[in-house]
Protein backbone atom coordinates (compact mmCIF):
# COMPACT_ATOMS: atom_id res chain seq x y z
CA UNK A 1 0.00 0.00 0.00
CA UNK A 2 2.36 2.65 -1.16
CA UNK A 3 5.29 4.03 0.76
CA UNK A 4 3.55 5.04 3.99
CA UNK A 5 3.70 2.42 6.75
CA UNK A 6 0.47 0.59 7.48
CA UNK A 7 -0.23 -1.75 10.37
CA UNK A 8 -3.32 -3.89 9.88
CA UNK A 9 -5.30 -6.25 12.07
CA UNK A 10 -5.91 -9.89 11.20
CA UNK A 11 -8.96 -8.97 9.08
CA UNK A 12 -6.97 -6.51 7.01
CA UNK A 13 -8.42 -3.36 8.55
CA UNK A 14 -5.94 -0.50 8.96
CA UNK A 15 -4.88 0.09 12.56
CA UNK A 16 -2.04 2.55 12.11
CA UNK A 17 -0.75 4.79 9.33
CA UNK A 18 2.63 6.52 9.52
CA UNK A 19 3.93 8.75 6.73
CA UNK A 20 7.57 8.73 5.63
CA UNK A 21 8.24 12.00 7.43
CA UNK A 22 7.04 10.40 10.67
CA UNK A 23 3.53 11.90 10.81
CA UNK A 24 0.99 9.51 12.36
CA UNK A 25 -2.41 9.67 10.71
CA UNK A 26 -5.65 9.30 12.69
CA UNK A 27 -8.84 7.67 11.38
CA UNK A 28 -10.63 11.04 11.44
CA UNK A 29 -9.94 14.68 12.21
CA UNK A 30 -11.99 17.45 13.81
CA UNK A 31 -11.68 20.92 15.38
CA UNK A 32 -9.97 19.46 18.46
CA UNK A 33 -7.01 18.36 16.30
CA UNK A 34 -6.47 21.87 15.02
CA UNK A 35 -6.65 23.18 18.56
CA UNK A 36 -4.17 20.60 19.77
CA UNK A 37 -1.76 21.46 16.94
CA UNK A 38 -2.01 25.14 17.86
CA UNK A 39 -3.68 26.20 14.61
CA UNK A 40 -4.42 29.90 14.27
CA UNK A 41 -6.27 31.05 11.18
CA UNK A 42 -4.32 34.23 10.42
CA UNK A 43 -0.93 32.88 11.37
CA UNK A 44 -1.20 29.45 9.75
CA UNK A 45 -3.61 29.83 6.84
CA UNK A 46 -4.80 33.33 6.04
CA UNK A 47 -6.29 34.50 2.77
CA UNK A 48 -5.16 33.26 -0.64
CA UNK A 49 -2.14 35.17 -1.83
CA UNK A 50 -1.39 36.53 1.64
CA UNK A 51 1.51 35.77 3.97
CA UNK A 52 2.41 33.02 4.86
CA UNK A 53 0.96 31.77 1.53
CA UNK A 54 -0.19 28.40 2.84
CA UNK A 55 -3.10 28.46 0.40
CA UNK A 56 -1.43 30.03 -2.63
CA UNK A 57 0.99 32.67 -3.85
CA UNK A 58 -1.63 34.65 -5.75
CA UNK A 59 -5.12 35.70 -4.59
CA UNK A 60 -6.78 34.19 -7.66
CA UNK A 61 -4.26 31.37 -8.24
CA UNK A 62 -5.38 29.08 -11.11
CA UNK A 63 -8.49 31.20 -11.71
CA UNK A 64 -6.30 33.94 -13.14
CA UNK A 65 -3.77 31.64 -14.79
CA UNK A 66 -3.39 27.90 -15.19
CA UNK A 67 -0.05 26.37 -14.33
CA UNK A 68 2.93 26.49 -16.69
CA UNK A 69 3.60 23.15 -18.35
CA UNK A 70 7.27 22.42 -18.79
CA UNK A 71 8.05 18.85 -19.87
CA UNK A 72 11.73 17.90 -19.60
CA UNK A 73 12.82 17.61 -23.24
CA UNK A 74 16.00 17.07 -25.20
CA UNK A 75 17.85 14.25 -26.91
CA UNK A 76 20.25 13.53 -29.74
CA UNK A 77 21.25 16.50 -31.82
CA UNK A 78 20.17 20.12 -31.44
CA UNK A 79 18.11 19.62 -34.64
CA UNK A 80 16.13 16.74 -33.13
CA UNK A 81 15.65 18.65 -29.89
CA UNK A 82 14.48 21.76 -31.74
CA UNK A 83 11.93 19.64 -33.60
CA UNK A 84 10.57 18.21 -30.31
CA UNK A 85 10.47 21.69 -28.68
CA UNK A 86 8.35 22.90 -31.58
CA UNK A 87 6.06 19.86 -31.39
CA UNK A 88 5.42 20.46 -27.68
CA UNK A 89 4.85 24.20 -28.13
CA UNK A 90 2.52 23.60 -31.09
CA UNK A 91 0.57 21.28 -28.81
CA UNK A 92 0.11 23.87 -26.09
CA UNK A 93 3.17 23.59 -23.86
CA UNK A 94 4.09 27.06 -22.59
CA UNK A 95 7.59 26.64 -21.20
CA UNK A 96 10.72 24.66 -22.04
CA UNK A 97 12.76 22.45 -19.72
CA UNK A 98 15.90 21.55 -21.61
CA UNK A 99 17.71 18.21 -21.22
CA UNK A 100 21.46 18.11 -21.94
CA UNK A 101 23.54 14.98 -22.45
CA UNK A 102 26.06 13.90 -19.81
CA UNK A 103 29.19 15.09 -21.68
CA UNK A 104 27.62 18.58 -21.93
CA UNK A 105 26.59 18.43 -18.25
CA UNK A 106 30.15 17.52 -17.28
CA UNK A 107 31.88 20.02 -19.54
CA UNK A 108 33.27 17.65 -22.19
CA UNK A 109 33.17 18.03 -25.94
CA UNK A 110 31.39 15.28 -27.86
CA UNK A 111 34.71 13.98 -29.23
CA UNK A 112 36.36 13.58 -25.81
CA UNK A 113 37.25 9.92 -24.99
CA UNK A 114 35.18 10.05 -21.79
CA UNK A 115 32.13 11.07 -23.83
CA UNK A 116 32.18 7.90 -25.89
CA UNK A 117 28.78 6.29 -26.10
CA UNK A 118 27.11 9.08 -24.13
CA UNK A 119 26.72 11.78 -26.80
CA UNK A 120 23.08 12.77 -27.22
CA UNK A 121 21.86 9.96 -24.95
CA UNK A 122 20.09 11.57 -22.02
CA UNK A 123 19.74 15.01 -23.56
CA UNK A 124 21.07 17.06 -26.42
CA UNK A 125 24.76 17.56 -27.07
CA UNK A 126 26.05 21.15 -26.99
CA UNK A 127 29.61 21.73 -28.16
CA UNK A 128 29.35 25.26 -29.49
CA UNK A 129 27.21 28.35 -29.71
CA UNK A 130 26.08 27.14 -33.13
CA UNK A 131 24.48 24.08 -31.49
CA UNK A 132 22.58 26.35 -29.13
CA UNK A 133 21.43 28.47 -32.05
CA UNK A 134 20.08 25.39 -33.83
CA UNK A 135 18.27 24.15 -30.72
CA UNK A 136 16.42 27.43 -30.13
CA UNK A 137 15.81 28.47 -33.76
CA UNK A 138 12.25 29.66 -34.28
CA UNK A 139 11.31 29.58 -30.58
CA UNK A 140 9.71 32.86 -29.40
CA UNK A 141 12.18 33.53 -26.58
CA UNK A 142 10.29 36.59 -25.36
CA UNK A 143 7.18 34.47 -24.74
CA UNK A 144 8.59 31.03 -23.88
CA UNK A 145 10.83 30.81 -20.83
CA UNK A 146 13.44 28.06 -20.71
CA UNK A 147 14.62 25.97 -17.82
CA UNK A 148 18.19 24.89 -18.58
CA UNK A 149 18.58 21.66 -16.68
CA UNK A 150 22.31 21.79 -16.10
CA UNK A 151 24.44 22.62 -13.09
CA UNK A 152 28.24 22.41 -13.13
CA UNK A 153 28.46 24.44 -16.36
CA UNK A 154 25.22 26.40 -15.89
CA UNK A 155 27.00 29.75 -16.14
CA UNK A 156 28.24 28.89 -19.63
CA UNK A 157 24.79 27.76 -20.75
CA UNK A 158 23.25 30.93 -19.36
CA UNK A 159 25.75 32.99 -21.36
CA UNK A 160 25.03 30.95 -24.50
CA UNK A 161 21.28 31.43 -24.03
CA UNK A 162 21.68 35.19 -23.80
CA UNK A 163 24.08 35.32 -26.75
CA UNK A 164 21.75 33.30 -28.97
CA UNK A 165 18.69 35.29 -27.89
CA UNK A 166 20.46 38.53 -28.73
CA UNK A 167 21.50 37.11 -32.09
CA UNK A 168 17.82 36.30 -32.76
CA UNK A 169 16.93 39.92 -31.94
CA UNK A 170 15.64 39.58 -28.35
CA UNK A 171 17.12 41.89 -25.73
CA UNK A 172 18.49 40.45 -22.50
CA UNK A 173 15.65 42.22 -20.68
CA UNK A 174 13.07 40.24 -22.69
CA UNK A 175 14.31 36.72 -22.13
CA UNK A 176 13.51 34.46 -19.21
CA UNK A 177 15.74 31.56 -18.35
CA UNK A 178 16.04 29.37 -15.28
CA UNK A 179 19.30 27.44 -15.29
CA UNK A 180 19.07 24.69 -12.67
CA UNK A 181 22.50 25.72 -11.38
CA UNK A 182 22.18 23.93 -8.03
CA UNK A 183 25.60 22.43 -7.51
CA UNK A 184 25.14 21.44 -3.87
CA UNK A 185 22.30 19.06 -4.69
CA UNK A 186 24.55 17.51 -7.37
CA UNK A 187 27.07 16.83 -4.64
CA UNK A 188 24.42 15.33 -2.37
CA UNK A 189 22.05 13.60 -4.73
CA UNK A 190 23.07 13.31 -8.37
CA UNK A 191 26.80 13.29 -8.91
CA UNK A 192 27.22 15.65 -11.89
CA UNK A 193 29.63 18.17 -10.38
CA UNK A 194 33.07 19.29 -11.58
CA UNK A 195 34.52 21.94 -9.28
CA UNK A 196 35.12 21.65 -5.51
CA UNK A 197 32.41 22.92 -3.16
CA UNK A 198 33.74 26.41 -2.53
CA UNK A 199 34.28 27.24 -6.21
CA UNK A 200 31.08 25.51 -7.27
CA UNK A 201 29.11 27.68 -4.86
CA UNK A 202 31.01 30.81 -5.93
CA UNK A 203 29.90 30.21 -9.53
CA UNK A 204 26.29 29.94 -8.37
CA UNK A 205 26.75 33.21 -6.50
CA UNK A 206 28.32 34.82 -9.60
CA UNK A 207 25.36 33.88 -11.75
CA UNK A 208 22.85 35.17 -9.17
CA UNK A 209 24.75 38.46 -9.02
CA UNK A 210 24.86 38.68 -12.81
CA UNK A 211 21.17 37.91 -13.22
CA UNK A 212 20.18 40.48 -10.61
CA UNK A 213 22.16 43.14 -12.47
CA UNK A 214 21.63 42.15 -16.10
CA UNK A 215 18.73 39.71 -16.63
CA UNK A 216 15.59 41.14 -15.04
CA UNK A 217 13.28 38.25 -16.05
CA UNK A 218 15.61 35.34 -15.35
CA UNK A 219 15.86 33.07 -12.32
CA UNK A 220 19.52 32.19 -11.90
CA UNK A 221 19.08 29.13 -9.67
CA UNK A 222 16.51 26.39 -9.21
CA UNK A 223 17.13 24.68 -5.90
CA UNK A 224 16.29 21.02 -6.13
CA UNK A 225 14.88 18.88 -3.39
CA UNK A 226 13.79 16.65 -6.27
CA UNK A 227 17.05 14.76 -6.74
CA UNK A 228 17.76 14.41 -3.03
CA UNK A 229 14.33 12.83 -2.72
CA UNK A 230 15.16 10.51 -5.65
CA UNK A 231 18.23 9.46 -3.65
CA UNK A 232 15.98 8.36 -0.80
CA UNK A 233 15.14 11.42 1.32
CA UNK A 234 11.75 11.69 3.04
CA UNK A 235 9.43 14.59 2.11
CA UNK A 236 10.49 16.53 5.22
CA UNK A 237 14.17 15.94 4.43
CA UNK A 238 13.64 16.95 0.79
CA UNK A 239 12.40 20.40 1.83
CA UNK A 240 14.82 20.76 4.75
CA UNK A 241 17.95 20.09 2.69
CA UNK A 242 16.76 22.28 -0.18
CA UNK A 243 16.26 25.16 2.26
CA UNK A 244 19.70 24.61 3.80
CA UNK A 245 21.20 24.67 0.28
CA UNK A 246 19.28 27.87 -0.49
CA UNK A 247 20.70 29.44 2.67
CA UNK A 248 24.23 28.58 1.55
CA UNK A 249 23.64 30.44 -1.73
CA UNK A 250 22.03 33.38 0.06
CA UNK A 251 25.04 33.64 2.38
CA UNK A 252 27.44 33.60 -0.58
CA UNK A 253 25.64 36.47 -2.32
CA UNK A 254 25.18 38.47 0.89
CA UNK A 255 28.97 38.38 1.38
CA UNK A 256 29.22 40.39 -1.85
CA UNK A 257 27.34 43.22 -0.21
CA UNK A 258 24.00 42.50 -1.89
CA UNK A 259 20.94 42.43 0.38
CA UNK A 260 18.67 39.33 0.38
CA UNK A 261 15.73 41.58 -0.54
CA UNK A 262 17.47 42.33 -3.84
CA UNK A 263 17.87 38.74 -5.02
CA UNK A 264 15.88 36.08 -3.15
CA UNK A 265 12.87 36.87 -5.30
CA UNK A 266 14.82 35.30 -8.18
CA UNK A 267 15.20 31.92 -6.52
CA UNK A 268 13.20 29.08 -7.93
CA UNK A 269 12.68 25.58 -6.50
CA UNK A 270 12.29 22.14 -8.02
CA UNK A 271 10.46 19.63 -5.83
CA UNK A 272 9.30 16.07 -6.29
CA UNK A 273 5.73 14.73 -6.31
CA UNK A 274 5.44 11.05 -5.47
CA UNK A 275 4.15 8.56 -2.98
CA UNK A 276 1.34 9.51 -0.63
CA UNK A 277 -0.98 12.22 -1.94
CA UNK A 278 -1.79 13.81 1.45
CA UNK A 279 1.77 13.85 2.69
CA UNK A 280 2.84 15.57 -0.56
CA UNK A 281 0.14 18.22 -0.23
CA UNK A 282 1.18 18.89 3.36
CA UNK A 283 4.80 19.08 2.22
CA UNK A 284 4.19 21.75 -0.42
CA UNK A 285 1.92 23.85 1.80
CA UNK A 286 4.34 23.69 4.72
CA UNK A 287 7.29 24.49 2.43
CA UNK A 288 5.60 27.59 0.97
CA UNK A 289 4.83 28.81 4.46
CA UNK A 290 8.24 28.06 5.98
CA UNK A 291 10.19 29.65 3.14
CA UNK A 292 8.25 32.90 3.52
CA UNK A 293 8.68 32.84 7.30
CA UNK A 294 12.40 32.12 7.02
CA UNK A 295 13.05 34.95 4.54
CA UNK A 296 11.05 37.37 6.65
CA UNK A 297 12.42 36.46 10.08
CA UNK A 298 15.99 35.43 9.32
CA UNK A 299 16.84 37.62 6.34
CA UNK A 300 14.60 40.63 6.91
CA UNK A 301 12.89 40.38 3.51
CA UNK A 302 9.72 42.47 3.49
CA UNK A 303 8.36 42.81 -0.03
CA UNK A 304 5.54 40.30 -0.47
CA UNK A 305 6.52 38.95 -3.88
CA UNK A 306 10.03 38.22 -2.71
CA UNK A 307 8.74 35.84 -0.07
CA UNK A 308 7.19 33.53 -2.68
CA UNK A 309 8.35 29.94 -2.91
CA UNK A 310 8.11 29.72 -6.68
CA UNK A 311 9.00 26.69 -8.67
CA UNK A 312 8.46 23.50 -10.52
CA UNK A 313 6.72 20.63 -8.76
CA UNK A 314 7.59 17.65 -10.93
CA UNK A 315 6.24 14.13 -10.96
CA UNK A 316 8.93 11.87 -9.49
CA UNK A 317 10.67 9.33 -11.69
CA UNK A 318 11.51 6.66 -9.15
CA UNK A 319 7.86 5.75 -8.59
CA UNK A 320 7.50 4.77 -12.24
CA UNK A 321 8.07 1.15 -13.16
CA UNK A 322 9.48 -0.57 -16.19
CA UNK A 323 7.01 -3.41 -15.68
CA UNK A 324 3.47 -2.69 -16.95
CA UNK A 325 4.61 0.77 -18.06
CA UNK A 326 1.09 1.95 -18.99
CA UNK A 327 0.35 2.09 -15.25
CA UNK A 328 2.74 5.04 -15.15
CA UNK A 329 0.21 7.11 -17.10
CA UNK A 330 -2.20 6.88 -14.16
CA UNK A 331 0.58 7.36 -11.61
CA UNK A 332 1.61 10.55 -13.38
CA UNK A 333 -1.98 11.78 -13.37
CA UNK A 334 -2.24 11.29 -9.60
CA UNK A 335 1.10 13.04 -9.05
CA UNK A 336 -0.16 15.94 -11.14
CA UNK A 337 -3.38 16.02 -9.12
CA UNK A 338 -1.31 16.30 -5.93
CA UNK A 339 0.69 19.15 -7.45
CA UNK A 340 -2.49 20.94 -8.53
CA UNK A 341 -4.10 20.56 -5.09
CA UNK A 342 -0.88 22.02 -3.67
CA UNK A 343 -1.00 25.08 -5.93
CA UNK A 344 2.01 24.24 -8.14
CA UNK A 345 3.01 27.13 -10.36
CA UNK A 346 4.89 25.06 -12.88
CA UNK A 347 4.54 21.36 -13.53
CA UNK A 348 6.25 18.54 -15.42
CA UNK A 349 5.68 14.81 -15.44
CA UNK A 350 7.99 11.96 -16.25
CA UNK A 351 6.49 10.22 -19.25
CA UNK A 352 5.22 6.67 -18.89
CA UNK A 353 8.04 5.13 -20.93
CA UNK A 354 10.76 7.12 -19.21
CA UNK A 355 11.71 4.18 -16.95
CA UNK A 356 13.39 2.60 -19.96
CA UNK A 357 13.75 5.08 -22.83
CA UNK A 358 13.75 8.67 -24.02
CA UNK A 359 10.05 9.63 -24.24
CA UNK A 360 8.47 9.24 -27.65
CA UNK A 361 6.33 12.07 -29.08
CA UNK A 362 3.27 10.01 -28.09
CA UNK A 363 4.28 9.59 -24.46
CA UNK A 364 5.46 13.20 -24.12
CA UNK A 365 2.11 14.45 -25.45
CA UNK A 366 0.21 12.10 -23.11
CA UNK A 367 1.97 13.79 -20.19
CA UNK A 368 1.11 17.22 -21.53
CA UNK A 369 -2.54 16.26 -22.04
CA UNK A 370 -2.70 14.81 -18.51
CA UNK A 371 -1.62 18.20 -17.17
CA UNK A 372 -4.13 20.06 -19.34
CA UNK A 373 -7.04 17.81 -18.36
CA UNK A 374 -6.67 18.77 -14.71
CA UNK A 375 -6.96 22.43 -15.59
CA UNK A 376 -9.44 22.25 -18.44
CA UNK A 377 -11.73 19.30 -17.71
CA UNK A 378 -11.67 18.20 -14.09
CA UNK A 379 -12.12 21.56 -12.35
CA UNK A 380 -8.84 22.33 -10.63
CA UNK A 381 -9.20 25.99 -11.62
CA UNK A 382 -12.63 26.43 -10.01
CA UNK A 383 -11.61 27.72 -6.60
CA UNK A 384 -8.32 28.61 -4.92
CA UNK A 385 -6.74 25.94 -2.70
CA UNK A 386 -9.81 23.70 -2.36
CA UNK A 387 -8.35 21.72 0.56
CA UNK A 388 -7.73 24.76 2.75
CA UNK A 389 -9.49 24.46 6.09
CA UNK A 390 -9.70 20.68 6.03
CA UNK A 391 -9.12 19.50 9.59
CA UNK A 392 -6.91 16.72 8.28
CA UNK A 393 -4.86 18.78 5.82
CA UNK A 394 -4.32 21.74 8.16
CA UNK A 395 -3.26 19.43 11.00
CA UNK A 396 -0.74 17.47 8.97
CA UNK A 397 0.55 20.68 7.35
CA UNK A 398 1.42 21.96 10.83
CA UNK A 399 2.98 18.62 11.71
CA UNK A 400 4.97 18.65 8.47
CA UNK A 401 6.28 22.12 9.29
CA UNK A 402 7.65 20.73 12.57
CA UNK A 403 9.22 17.75 10.82
CA UNK A 404 10.96 20.00 8.27
CA UNK A 405 12.35 22.21 11.04
CA UNK A 406 13.61 19.13 12.89
CA UNK A 407 15.35 17.90 9.74
CA UNK A 408 16.94 21.31 9.15
CA UNK A 409 18.58 20.98 12.57
CA UNK A 410 19.97 17.63 11.43
CA UNK A 411 21.19 18.94 8.07
CA UNK A 412 24.47 17.05 8.32
CA UNK A 413 22.47 13.88 7.66
CA UNK A 414 22.18 15.00 4.04
CA UNK A 415 25.54 13.36 3.51
CA UNK A 416 23.79 10.00 3.85
CA UNK A 417 22.22 10.50 0.45
CA UNK A 418 25.53 10.98 -1.31
Amino acid at each position, binding site marked *: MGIAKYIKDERGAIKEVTYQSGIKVKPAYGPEDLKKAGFEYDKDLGSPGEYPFTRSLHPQSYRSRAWTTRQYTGFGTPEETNERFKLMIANGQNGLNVAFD*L*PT*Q*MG*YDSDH*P*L*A*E*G*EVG*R*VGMAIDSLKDFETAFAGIPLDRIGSGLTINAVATIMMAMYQAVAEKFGYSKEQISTTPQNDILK*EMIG*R*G*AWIFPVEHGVRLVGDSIEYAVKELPRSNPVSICGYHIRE*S*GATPAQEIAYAFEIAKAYIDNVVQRGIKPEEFVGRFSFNFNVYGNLWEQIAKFRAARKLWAKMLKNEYGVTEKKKLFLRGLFGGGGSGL*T*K*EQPENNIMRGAYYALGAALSGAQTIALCSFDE*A*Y*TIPTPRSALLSLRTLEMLMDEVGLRDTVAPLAGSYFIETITLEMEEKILEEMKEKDRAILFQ
Partner: protein
Amino acid sequence: MKTKNKIRVLIAKPGLDGHDKGAKIVALALRDAGMEVIYSGLHQTLDQITQTAIQETVDVIGLSIMSGAHLPISEKLINMMKEQGLDDVNLTVGGVIPHQDIPKLKEMGVAEVFPGGTSFEDIITGINNLFE
Protein backbone atom coordinates in the same frame (compact mmCIF):
# COMPACT_ATOMS: atom_id res chain seq x y z
CA MET B 1 29.18 -22.93 -6.32
CA LYS B 2 32.60 -21.54 -5.52
CA THR B 3 32.92 -22.42 -1.84
CA LYS B 4 36.66 -22.55 -1.27
CA ASN B 5 37.42 -18.92 -1.98
CA LYS B 6 35.09 -16.00 -1.79
CA ILE B 7 34.00 -14.60 -5.15
CA ARG B 8 35.61 -11.18 -5.61
CA VAL B 9 33.48 -8.62 -7.43
CA LEU B 10 34.39 -5.15 -8.70
CA ILE B 11 31.26 -3.00 -8.97
CA ALA B 12 32.20 -0.20 -11.37
CA LYS B 13 30.59 3.02 -12.62
CA PRO B 14 32.03 3.80 -16.06
CA GLY B 15 31.71 7.10 -17.87
CA LEU B 16 29.90 10.25 -16.84
CA ASP B 17 26.71 8.87 -15.30
CA GLY B 18 26.39 9.92 -11.65
CA HIS B 19 23.51 7.63 -10.62
CA ASP B 20 25.17 5.32 -8.13
CA LYS B 21 22.37 4.20 -5.79
CA GLY B 22 21.84 0.98 -7.76
CA ALA B 23 25.56 0.15 -7.77
CA LYS B 24 25.87 0.75 -4.04
CA ILE B 25 22.78 -1.26 -3.15
CA VAL B 26 23.85 -4.20 -5.32
CA ALA B 27 27.32 -4.01 -3.75
CA LEU B 28 25.76 -4.38 -0.29
CA ALA B 29 23.53 -7.26 -1.43
CA LEU B 30 26.51 -9.15 -2.87
CA ARG B 31 28.52 -8.51 0.28
CA ASP B 32 25.64 -9.85 2.40
CA ALA B 33 25.58 -12.90 0.14
CA GLY B 34 29.17 -13.64 1.16
CA MET B 35 31.11 -12.13 -1.74
CA GLU B 36 34.01 -9.70 -1.45
CA VAL B 37 33.01 -6.47 -3.12
CA ILE B 38 35.11 -3.55 -4.29
CA TYR B 39 33.28 -0.39 -5.40
CA SER B 40 35.06 1.83 -7.94
CA GLY B 41 33.39 5.17 -7.20
CA LEU B 42 31.97 7.45 -9.89
CA HIS B 43 33.24 8.52 -13.33
CA GLN B 44 35.78 5.76 -13.98
CA THR B 45 37.53 5.39 -17.31
CA LEU B 46 37.61 1.87 -18.74
CA ASP B 47 41.36 1.88 -18.24
CA GLN B 48 40.89 2.62 -14.55
CA ILE B 49 38.35 -0.19 -14.27
CA THR B 50 40.67 -2.68 -16.00
CA GLN B 51 43.59 -1.69 -13.78
CA THR B 52 41.48 -2.00 -10.61
CA ALA B 53 40.33 -5.46 -11.75
CA ILE B 54 43.97 -6.52 -12.20
CA GLN B 55 45.21 -5.09 -8.92
CA GLU B 56 42.30 -6.49 -6.91
CA THR B 57 42.40 -9.85 -8.73
CA VAL B 58 38.66 -9.92 -9.07
CA ASP B 59 36.60 -12.77 -10.51
CA VAL B 60 33.76 -10.56 -11.71
CA ILE B 61 33.40 -7.00 -12.99
CA GLY B 62 29.86 -5.67 -12.53
CA LEU B 63 29.27 -2.54 -14.60
CA SER B 64 26.43 -0.23 -13.57
CA ILE B 65 25.20 1.86 -16.52
CA MET B 66 22.10 4.07 -16.53
CA SER B 67 23.04 6.39 -19.37
CA GLY B 68 22.18 4.20 -22.36
CA ALA B 69 25.84 3.80 -23.30
CA HIS B 70 26.01 0.10 -22.32
CA LEU B 71 26.72 -1.27 -25.81
CA PRO B 72 29.82 0.77 -26.75
CA ILE B 73 31.16 0.71 -23.16
CA SER B 74 30.82 -3.07 -22.80
CA GLU B 75 32.35 -3.76 -26.19
CA LYS B 76 35.34 -1.57 -25.50
CA LEU B 77 35.88 -3.01 -22.02
CA ILE B 78 35.75 -6.59 -23.31
CA ASN B 79 38.48 -5.77 -25.82
CA MET B 80 40.60 -4.14 -23.16
CA MET B 81 40.12 -7.11 -20.83
CA LYS B 82 41.31 -9.42 -23.62
CA GLU B 83 44.36 -7.25 -24.26
CA GLN B 84 45.21 -7.35 -20.55
CA GLY B 85 44.78 -11.12 -20.37
CA LEU B 86 41.77 -10.96 -18.06
CA ASP B 87 40.30 -14.04 -19.74
CA ASP B 88 39.18 -15.60 -16.46
CA VAL B 89 37.29 -12.49 -15.32
CA ASN B 90 33.55 -12.44 -15.97
CA LEU B 91 31.90 -9.23 -17.08
CA THR B 92 28.32 -8.57 -15.95
CA VAL B 93 26.25 -5.49 -16.75
CA GLY B 94 23.35 -3.94 -14.84
CA GLY B 95 21.26 -0.79 -15.06
CA VAL B 96 18.83 0.65 -17.57
CA ILE B 97 19.29 -2.01 -20.24
CA PRO B 98 16.53 -2.46 -22.86
CA HIS B 99 15.61 -6.14 -23.31
CA GLN B 100 16.49 -6.09 -27.01
CA ASP B 101 20.08 -5.24 -26.10
CA ILE B 102 20.60 -8.26 -23.83
CA PRO B 103 21.34 -10.75 -26.69
CA LYS B 104 23.76 -8.20 -28.21
CA LEU B 105 25.63 -7.90 -24.93
CA LYS B 106 25.76 -11.66 -24.45
CA GLU B 107 27.03 -12.08 -28.00
CA MET B 108 29.95 -9.72 -27.41
CA GLY B 109 30.93 -11.75 -24.36
CA VAL B 110 29.05 -10.30 -21.38
CA ALA B 111 28.45 -13.22 -19.00
CA GLU B 112 25.25 -11.98 -17.37
CA VAL B 113 22.95 -8.97 -17.79
CA PHE B 114 20.82 -7.70 -14.89
CA PRO B 115 18.42 -5.01 -16.12
CA GLY B 116 16.55 -2.73 -13.67
CA GLY B 117 13.95 -4.72 -11.75
CA THR B 118 16.12 -7.85 -11.37
CA SER B 119 15.85 -9.20 -7.82
CA PHE B 120 18.92 -9.44 -5.59
CA GLU B 121 18.33 -13.18 -5.47
CA ASP B 122 18.58 -13.44 -9.25
CA ILE B 123 21.74 -11.32 -9.32
CA ILE B 124 23.38 -13.42 -6.57
CA THR B 125 22.36 -16.71 -8.19
CA GLY B 126 23.45 -15.44 -11.60
CA ILE B 127 26.92 -14.61 -10.32
CA ASN B 128 27.26 -17.80 -8.25
CA ASN B 129 26.29 -19.87 -11.29
CA LEU B 130 29.26 -18.48 -13.21
CA PHE B 131 31.49 -20.50 -10.89
CA GLU B 132 29.62 -23.80 -10.75
